[in-house]
């Protein structure tokens, strides 16, 4: 990634959960921090998210889920990325993810989970520090 290329982030909500305040706020905040953000919206299937990530050539996927379906949906995104041999996209997540579920998600390849109370600046700094060059 050259110095001129902005970090590209796809923010999307897999599954049926419609609570999109956090996802929208993060998309707007990362944009203000100089990243190219694509807001994928709600009601995205894992397939649609991965397809959009490939099409938009993103560096980061941010998944948001508050309905309890993260244990299925987040790993499913990782599976599909693996199937499509996408290895250099960082996947992070947030929403309402009980503490006890976090290590399981990380084992499946989710890099980090950002819970309630995280500042958007924190998320931006994390992405900048950890995104693959």
């Amino acid at each position, binding site marked *: 990634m050259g110095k001129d290329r902005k970090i590209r982030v796809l923010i999307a909500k897999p599954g049926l959960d419609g609570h999109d305040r956090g996802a929208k*706020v993060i998309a707007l905040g990362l944009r203000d921090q100089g990243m190219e953000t694509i807001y994928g919206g709600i009601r995205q299937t894992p397939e649609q998210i991965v397809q959009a990530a490939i099409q938009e050539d993103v560096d980061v996927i941010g998944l948001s889920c508050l309905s309890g379906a993260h244990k299925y949906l987040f790993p499913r995104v990782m599976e599909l990325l693996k199937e499509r041999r996408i290895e250099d996209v960082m996947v992070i997540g947030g929403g309402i993810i009980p503490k006890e579920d976090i290590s399981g998600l990380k084992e499946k390849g989710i890099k980090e989970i950002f819970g309630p109370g995280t500042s958007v600046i924190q998320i931006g700094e994390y992405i900048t520090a950890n995104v693959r060059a």
Partner: protein
Amino acid sequence: MLNEPEEIKKKKVEWEENTVQPALKRFLLTESPTRFYTPADVGEIDFLNQIGFPGQYPFTAGAYPTYPYRPAPRSGYQGAPGLKRTSIYAGYGSPEDSRDFYLEMRERGQKGGPNLAFDLPTQCGYDSDNRLVRGEVGKTGMALDTLRDFEVLYEAFVGEMDLDRIASNFTVNADSNIVVAMYFALAEKRGISPDKLRGTPQNDILKEFIARGTYIFPPKPSMRMVRDSIVFFNKYYPKMNINQLGGYHIRAAGATREQELAYSLAILIAYLQEGVNAGIDIDSFAPRFTINSFGGSMDFFKEIAFYRATRRMWAKIIKERFGAKKERSMIIRQVVPYCLMGNENCTVQRPLNNIARSLVGGIASALVGGPPQPYPPYDEALGLGWSLEALQITEDSARILQYEAKLTEVIDPLAGSYYVEGLTNQIAEEAMKELEKIDGMGGIVAAIESGYIQSQIAKSAYERQCRIDRGEDLIVGVNCFVGEGELEVETNRLVAHPYNPKRREDAEARQIENLTEVKRIRDNTAVIRLLNELKVKAKNNDENLFPHFIECAKAYVSLQEMCDVLRDVFGEYQSPGL
């Protein structure tokens, strides 16, 4: 007023110079962190027209003339006759799981009909066996696919608790008419006549487009379904409430309180207009509109003022714009005012602090005429389903506020406060400006179709986050008072919540089996015929779809099968981007 406003203003200036300034010097402050209000700030208060008596137009002081709530020994307030409350909002897994849950709660002393939470597939018009909804079945509530599922759930409500003795609450919106039709079909099967059925579907689709997200069809066909519900209930099910409104979700999505009030009113206007356009007298159906909740914040006085402004404006609109004559058409019919601190302000960090936060809401709730509802339980942010300890604390907090602090003995005690009356007027005025803007756009449906509302809410949400990130809005334990010297107080949930985690895990598989069996043994020829007929009827805007939904329900047509036909005819809503 005994003192002329001009005289008070003059004295205030003197006070600022002679008393405040020396104090600022003494306390090493450059400017005063406090304000003080006098009669000059609010001017002449027109008590009879602007405030009035509780339970009388314009209802600023209260929806009811007295405090009608009676506490139950367990599980909070049971309400009063006419405000009969259903159980606590609950439901999960398969209908068997929810049935057993309600039976268990009954043993713990919880009376009343089900206040049913549905899973997202049900709310979004999908069946449990749809591959697209894997992982979601039974998670946020009970899975409902066919009439069979209500038959199972309501095995918990028979005899003394049959459908003519209880009221049911259904938190469902886009496909509310289909879910309610299944309920009506169940009642028919049990030989219970329509005029005895009591219940409340949420049935508030417009807020789904802008805040909550469980929409299916575009706004205009959705309004046709709203019309169907108003007309059908009004004619055949007079004891059913038509909807549960209120801007709770709108505020939680990020709207300011003025925006919430404006959009709630605009939505109310649109629904009332559907009934009026269908030729029904306003006083005949408006009393069947209820309120779920409004939103809130930690800004204590502003939320009290907000409630007063909301009651006044709600009543004014219904009286002045729609010519209602019955006072019962104009009041905010709400079980309890209960989200005054804004549930979304609960933190994951040091969760026991949420007890203090919910107390702010509980006290505010008492001061606006409700029972003190220190809601939500402190573990709100820790995951779906609360611990029983947290529920116990919530109930005890309410009891302490009522019986020890005696907060409910005086109605609207802040009436006449120079500060609060001024705030009430201010909030009402600003909300009115935004409402007039929406009027100018042609109403809320047009404002939703254009994306205006959605972008306003996203903007407000973002502005709030920026203030938090800049440290301008303080959240204790999150962006201030953290670090060394501060204890990260944690909590354990020791008493398991009655949602059985194992049943929740395998609910999806079991429900798919249930549905497969229903589809196998039902009369599939009839199903196909009924769906074809539905398509024809849906295309005719003048036809009320309720009777046909009931027929479909009785034949065990599934929720998604009906919704798919409607998707075909109505289209699906496409949300505007960011």
